């Protein structure tokens, strides 16, 4: 099964990949970002936020982007 995966970690990624059928989002995240903490990312499928147990489908567009991008001159 193929999905489009968009992510900035490592070399950066925006391409179609093969995954096993009926994969939940949580498992996909753990496979693709094993170092990552889910709370540090916004996970969307087809531009919509999803729950960790949502099942991915053929042709889905999975976007994992960083959250809490912030700067401040005082901490």
């Amino acid at each position: 099964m193929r999905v489009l995966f968009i992510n900035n970690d490592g070399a950066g990624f925006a391409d179609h990949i093969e995954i096993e059928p009926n994969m939940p989002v949580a498992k996909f995240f753990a496979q693709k970002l094993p170092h990552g903490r889910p709370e540090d990312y916004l996970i969307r499928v087809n531009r919509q936020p999803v729950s960790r147990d949502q099942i991915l489908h053929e042709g889905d567009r999975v976007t994992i982007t960083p959250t809490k991008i912030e700067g401040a001159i005082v901490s």
Partner: protein
Amino acid sequence: MFETPTLRFGPNAWAKLEYFLQAGDSEIGGFGVTSRDDLLLIEDFVTVKQRTTAISVKFDDTAVAEFFEDQVDTGRTPEHFARIWLHTHPGDCPNPSATDEETFARVFGNCDWAIMFILARGGQTYCRLRFNSGPGGSMKIPVAVDFSSPFTASDHTAWQEEYQRNVCIEPLVPRNGLLARSDDWDWVEDPFANEVEALLEDDMFEFELENWEDDQCRI
């Protein structure tokens, strides 16, 4: 042309960043979108929806995701639009704060490479390249405006529209709740406001930074 790695801004990108810097009394931030052939040449400065104050900027998480998706739809890959984090500081000090460093490590620390660029209102800049390939490391790199390629005129109308669409300036809120106005308390002048004002005007203001030199460069 450049012997050492140098972050270069196309004239339009630099002009747009300067415009946003001066458009309001707050920090602002965005991403540098680079040339497809040169990852250190910023062709555009792009903002996303953000909440800002005079001393902070925070991107909207959904807007960041939309930015990624829109850029991918144009055929770009993340290394062309999501590796150069740009933001501004009030006053003359461009050095990163602890918050800046935390964001740079957490958000960009897993990328093969990334750049944190800070432009102070006084014109001083700070630019650091971080890379994870090989042994990894980071280094401050110079900044330049690259006039070598053709460029178009500025577009203040479009820039102002983008500014108004994306930049939400919020008032500074005292951290100490006792300073808030209340009928149960005698109102006294808020000393926090004076602290912030003094902070912004203090050219010598610096943060605790270990292992980093304060050699502010000016374009």
